[in-house]
């Protein structure tokens, strides 16, 4: 009996996710040894590490669960343990609020999952994945469509697909940094695992529009995520929004794979899925690294608001270099890992546009265009994040006294930074592994597909003239740099360093307050995308006389469209409905007894009739 409820699977997909989880968990744990010590009491640290372990265990169980019953239990365990980690700073009101939003969204998702699983159970009479897969073949297409939509909403709420993403920017910043790294890096990926496992492996792709819907949602997630990240000034919130965007990029690969397999292009499907999985793994690593870096900054300065930081590159050089590496990877700069997977995804979309005909050609073109735009905006976003945080001059006293974090924290980040480089340079080796997993997912023997390899170049037999060689790219970049350096030296002689004040029109009172701000940096984007961001400002002048302004107060914000227009309305109408139910709550014992009596009477009459 116990066996039927607690079976595990260890197929390539499960093993791949187990490796992903462990790859992020171990450095995060090492990091937490240093991070927690400075912020919490011993009791709280023990509690935190216990919850952390429970959380990792639950995630491992989610990706290895062999039946839906067990899956659902550990899925909830994962939500619960992460909820307690989100509200770890229990004295902070914001944490409680974030935890509530997170829990509500998680429960909504689970409700949809339960509905889907009950449908599966009803059809198959079993909880086991394999039996369900056999039984679902004979399900009519309408029911399969319903099942797909239920699964998409259920897992979408956990993955943070727009418009179900609202919990990410609340929950991720409030958790301790090593937990945010895990939540943003790995936990939301378990939802991708769920989509792959249940939609592609168990349900099978039955209609073309499934893949199209996934791609459309992915495109929206990409743009919404990165635009919100651009205007955000809280470092961890910014990273959380960027997670929404990266989930979009991963889903672009997954959705493309769904379309290709439905139309009968197994090789392309494997490549698309491989790109998606590659980006999933990469995002886990560099987002983990960036969250850990944000934690180190918070540890050193006590602030996450990038408007209050600045000039940190001299104070905490190690953290700065790790953060720079992470930012470069997430901005898809060659030769780092983010570049590889985003390039592969882009390649897949182009191949789709080249191979398919009709409307799908245009569809893939648009998707590729949106991915390209996203890439550009990401670069801008992280130029802002890195530039304002680390460059320039310190904007507060605490930043001036910032100290480098301890060995454990540096170790945690160093491991991830190392992986960022390795996954970028070793693409030839890794693409085979990801191809193998993707081949398993798509039901194609990947060893039959040849990614033709000559020295360090991959090329696909079906898509000629496409090369990817990150080591060469690195070499090329280095050569360019050396060449430029030599040229400069030749023409202008050795560089002379002059230290002096910035010229300030003879005012001689420039301080860090005159520095370029993050708000200023993102202003062009606020203007260009004002139709979506809906920026507004608050101005307040206190004048001494007509000519002299004594105080000037200026604030600018962007509207959170989904929160303000959709969720607040939903919440409001729920409360109104609940309020209208208050009419029957008189508080009188007699009336309550009357309700009970009336119910019994009605039941009696009901029994009498039938």
């Amino acid at each position, binding site marked *: 009996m116990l066996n039927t409820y607690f079976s595990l699977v260890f197929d390539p997909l499960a093993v791949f996710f187990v490796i992903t989880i462990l790859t992020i968990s171990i450095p995060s744990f090492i990091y937490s040894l240093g991070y927690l010590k400075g912020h919490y009491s011993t009791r709280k640290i023990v509690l935190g590490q216990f919850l952390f372990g429970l959380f990792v265990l639950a995630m491992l169980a989610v990706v290895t669960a062999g039946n839906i019953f067990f899956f659902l239990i550990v899925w909830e365990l994962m939500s619960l343990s992460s909820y307690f980690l989100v509200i770890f700073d229990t004295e902070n009101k914001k944490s409680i609020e974030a935890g509530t939003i997170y829990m509500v969204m998680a429960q909504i998702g689970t409700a949809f999952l339960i509905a889907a699983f009950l449908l599966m159970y009803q059809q198959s009479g079993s909880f086991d994945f394999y039996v369900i897969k056999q039984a679902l073949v004979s399900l009519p297409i309408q029911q399969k469509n319903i099942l797909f939509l239920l699964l998409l909403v259920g897992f979408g709420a956990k993955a943070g697909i727009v418009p179900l993403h609202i919990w990410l920017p609340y929950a991720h910043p409030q958790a301790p940094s090593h937990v945010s790294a895990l939540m943003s890096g790995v936990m939301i990926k378990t939802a991708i695992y769920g989509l792959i496992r249940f939609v592609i492996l168990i349900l099978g792709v039955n209609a073309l529009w499934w893949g199209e819907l996934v791609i459309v949602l992915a495109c929206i997630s990409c743009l919404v995520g990165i635009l919100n990240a651009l205007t955000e000034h809280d470092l961890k919130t910014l990273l959380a929004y960027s997670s929404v965007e990266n989930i979009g990029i991963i889903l672009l690969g997954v959705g493309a794979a769904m379309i290709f397999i439905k139309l009968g292009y197994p090789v392309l499907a494997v490549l698309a899925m491989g790109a998606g999985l590659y980006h999933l793994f990469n995002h886990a690593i560099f987002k983990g690294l960036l969250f850990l870096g944000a934690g180190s900054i918070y540890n050193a300065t006590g602030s996450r608001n990038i408007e209050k930081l600045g000039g940190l590159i001299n104070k905490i050089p190690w953290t700065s270099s790790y953060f720079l590496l992470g930012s470069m990877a997430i901005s898809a700069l060659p030769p780092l890992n983010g570049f590889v997977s985003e390039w592969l995804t882009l390649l897949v979309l182009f191949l789709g546009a080249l191979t398919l005909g009709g409307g799908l050609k245009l569809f893939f073109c648009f998707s590729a265009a949106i991915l390209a735009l996203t890439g550009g905006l990401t670069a801008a976003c992280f130029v802002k994040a890195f530039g304002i945080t680390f460059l320039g001059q310190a904007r507060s006293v605490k930043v001036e006294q910032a100290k480098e974090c301890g060995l454990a924290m540096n170790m945690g980040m160093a491991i991830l930074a190392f992986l960022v480089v390795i996954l970028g340079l070793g693409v030839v080796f890794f693409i085979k592994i990801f191809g193998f997993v993707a081949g398993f997912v798509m039901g194609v023997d990947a060893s039959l597909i040849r990614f033709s390899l000559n020295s360090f170049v991959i090329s696909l037999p079906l898509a000629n003239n496409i090369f990817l060689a990150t080591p060469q790219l690195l070499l090329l970049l280095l050569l360019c740099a050396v060449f430029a350096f030599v040229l400069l030296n030749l023409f202008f002689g050795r560089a002379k360093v002059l230290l002096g004040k910035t010229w300030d029109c003879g005012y001689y009172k420039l301080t860090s307050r005159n520095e370029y701000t993050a708000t200023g940096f993102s202003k062009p984007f606020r203007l260009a995308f004002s139709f979506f961001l809906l920026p507004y400002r608050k101005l307040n002048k206190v004048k001494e006389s007509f000519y002299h302004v004594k105080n000037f107060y200026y604030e600018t914000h962007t509207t959170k469209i989904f929160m303000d227009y959709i969720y607040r309305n939903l919440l409001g109408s729920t409360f109104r409905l609940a309020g209208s139910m208050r009419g029957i709550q008189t*508080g*009188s*014992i*007699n009336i309550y007894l009357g309700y009970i*009596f009336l119910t*019994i009477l009605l039941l*009696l*009459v009901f029994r*009498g009739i039938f």
Partner: protein
Amino acid sequence: MEFFLILGLLASAFGLVSAKRLSVLIGNFSLQSLLLAILTFVEAVNLGQLGLCIIALLVLALKVVIIPKILSNITKEIKVNDNLEFYLNPQLSLLMALLLTYLCWTFASVIFVESDAVAKMCGAVSFSMIALGMFLMIFRVKALAQIIGLLAMENGVFLLAALVLNGMPFLVEMAIFFDVFVGVVILGVFVYRINRLFVGIDVSKLNRLRG
């Protein structure tokens, strides 16, 4: 014999509904319990069961003597006005009670299709006793009426168990008696507290819990 006893039970239930004073209410309850005890005793003799005999004696001791004594003591001690206050006056209450009895009768005749007339009647009366006890709880203001209503409902359940289903296991019956007794004691304490806190035992004053 049994037939008249059952009718007597129904009559006492009507008596409960139409009572105007607390002392009458308690007396009526005592009378109902007495009839129930006799009925149980007759049944026990007929069936030759010693267990049911003991239960009948327990009914006599507990519901006829002890509980009414406790309740009347409470009324004396907290010096509450003997008048029951109504949401529905006794005449209309009686009319409603008749309607409810009719409803219970039809219900019983649906359930006990294959039983003989006495069993059917017995079922109908026990349902009526439950319904009228509930009715009492709803339409009377004083907290003591709620206690009596609950006990009257319990009497109905007891009748159903003892006669229609030929008695429950002895241990279960004992447990129920103990429950009822403890329940009365606790409710009595509550009535004291309510009286002290709200100056009077009108449950209509207990509406501050509303959110």
